[in-house]
């Protein structure tokens, strides 16, 4: 179980390492590889811990004759269990660290996303501008029409004839 998980994790991260190796600078790539190695090591340590402690736990679990040994074994069992939980906790912290790294270092996807949003917003702005322009033109056209209509309307014509204004 240990090896299987370790192998799977190693395979997944190995491809990321290849990607990082083709990055901008050799120093950055080396640092990334180093970091990846340390992370993997931590993973393996933790998982080894868990498995180790579990096997000890199981070993110590048999029922022995003298009660003294049983008490001793009880304490041992508790200790092993606590170590297992602690290893699990540290694994979880590792996971959250990885998540943080993903948030802050996924530059390719971030950049893509930012550019996409920029394009969207620019289009939106242009659309709004065009709409404003169109509104302006329509307003001007309506104004012209209304003015022409008013000045050629019957009301004005009657004013014209009577020479009489309210």
């Amino acid at each position, binding site marked *: 179980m240990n090896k299987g998980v370790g192998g799977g994790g190693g395979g997944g991260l190995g491809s990321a390492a290849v990607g990082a190796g083709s990055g901008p600078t050799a120093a950055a790539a080396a640092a990334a590889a180093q970091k990846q190695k340390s992370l993997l090591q931590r993973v393996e340590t933790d998982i080894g811990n868990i498995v180790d402690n579990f096997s000890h736990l199981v070993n110590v679990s048999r029922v022995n004759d003298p009660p003294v040994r049983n008490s001793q074994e009880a304490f041992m069992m508790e200790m092993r269990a606590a170590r297992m939980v602690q290893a699990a906790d540290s694994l979880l912290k590792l996971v959250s660290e990885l998540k943080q790294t993903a948030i802050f270092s996924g530059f390719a996807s971030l950049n893509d996303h930012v550019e996409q949003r920029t394009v969207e917003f620019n289009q939106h702005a242009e659309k709004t501008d065009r709409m404003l322009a169109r509104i302006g033109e329509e307003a001007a056209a309506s104004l*012209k029409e209304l003015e022409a209509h008013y000045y050629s309307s019957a009301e004005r014509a009657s004013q014209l004839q009577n020479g009489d204004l309210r």
Partner: protein
Amino acid sequence: MDGNLEVSLDKLPIKRLDSIEENGVERFPPDVGYDETRLSLIRRIDFAWAVEKDDKKKQKKSSKESSTPWQWQSMVENLQLAHQELSVIIDLINTVEANDAVTVAGMTRPKPLPNELLSDLSASAATKLQCFRHLGKYFKQSANALDQQVAREARFYGALIRLQQNWKVKRQRGAASGPGSEGFTIDLFDNSLYDPAAVFRPSSLSTIRVDHDSAGMLSINLPPKSCHSLQFSFLGGHSGESLQEPYKTKTYSSVDYRSRESEKESMSDDECVKETHSLLRETHQAIFDEQVFDLVNREAFNPSLGVNVTGIRENYLQLSIGQGTSVFISLVPSSQGDQTAESLGSQNLENAILPLDSLEGVKLPEEEHDTPKKWGFPNHISYEIYLQQIFHEHILVKAKEKPVFTRSQVSGQGAKDGSSLLGHFCLSLAHRIFSNKVLMELENVVCRVPYLQLISHPTWHSRTSSWTVFMKVPQSILHAGCQARTSNNPRVKNVIKSQFRTKVVVNDDCINIEGEGAPNVLGLFKGNSEEISSMNRYDCDLADLPVTILQQVASQVIGWLHEEALSVGIKVNRDFLCLSFELEQGEIVSLVAHVDPEDNQGCISWWLVMEDGFAEEQKLHMDGSDGASEYRKFLGHLSLDVLYSTLMDLVSLCSGGGSQ
């Protein structure tokens, strides 16, 4: 060894008769070997007292255990008992060895009986079982806790990733900034946009800390009145109006929503993220408003055209922009927008510089009551938006040099360096107010002269406005004949105009009028009709605008009549607003236009003036009471058709003398 000491005496070592048989044989007990003697001696030692003591102690201890259990107690007791037993045995062995009576060869543990074995086993198994159960509980608890932690983190990081798609999330390494926080901040200050030379101090709002709320979900906490928004308004004009803008109430509602604690738990993650997003957006806008205010302040104190600072307080700037108007620009806290803005507005009423009386008295017949806001002041919201927009464009254009939009007014108005943005804004506002006044005057005029039309020309320029006063004259019935005639007479214009236009253009606060029939002094001297009716362009004041327009129109009418008369072949003289016909006896009949902008029945009225041709010097004396050489008749406000027919009548009067 507290018990009673018992002493047992050995039997004397004499042979005792065991039994006698009938035949007299004596049976003696068999001789006890040396080892057996020792063994029997040892066996005679009574350990019952020790065993009893153990039992008693055990009973005592068991009664004590139920009251104060200590996990090591049983072990201690067991060890003590064992110790005691051992000490007894060692004493015995030492005594016996000292007496040289017996040496201990070896001791074997008595083989336990099966029920003892089983009971021991069961006790151990039970203990172990308890241990297992305890461990099981512990594992379950840990698993739950870890599950919860995973779930919390998943929510938190999920929300953070979603926020990161729109905002800049930063991580603080090193010392955590506070309990429960992992050192994430959201940075709202955009370094790339601003000119490093103009030192923009990052606002205190720029960096927002990301916290966990009680449920482990992402939350941001802003101090309650930290966000300010920009407000622009006129002084003294809006006593009754709420200074709140409709488009900002939407953000207020989100702030209220945020403060309702009880609803927080029922919000899904999506809503939580959306709300955080909108809070961040509000803060971003508040930062932008603060920067705009900052820029406005800086520019206000650079001397530039159109900007006069008349008052300054904290977060408040008052400017006088000409046209007798004052405006103020202030930063108000967003959360209490309603009360603060109203109190600010009422305070400013007391400090109002401008009374609005100068804008009242609109002469339109419909506008009896004063709604001076409508005519005098443009909408303050639109100018607030305009202020924000031009500063935004300035910032963007300067920093990124991206191509500006087609209708951007800043770019269309030439290269604007930073120092004149506020000046441009104030001038635009002043222009708007001024052009409203101009429009009012023009409409007054056009309303009262029935044959005039007003056409507006939107210029899409914030400091230029333009209108055309348009007059359409009746189509000449002799038009066709006139055209045939003009081919012989090149001096007369080929086309008789049927439309006259007077263009009024306002640039900032200069009125420029362009039209035909403008008074051209040279043309008057030459008496040439072409010169008089050339296009002319001149400036004008607001006060003189109505008169000027009316004179322009009247001279256009006169020009038209002149053309018409010429087209029928009558010799007429034109003198600015007067058209003179010569009659047979040397009498001169003139049609004179009189313009009066205050006339409510129509601004252009017509007089018929008859003069004796020989008394020309008396023309200079314009007293109407002298009726000897002059006769005037008021014709009234005539329409163009009536004027045309009057002209034809006069033409027929003259036709005996002057037809060619």
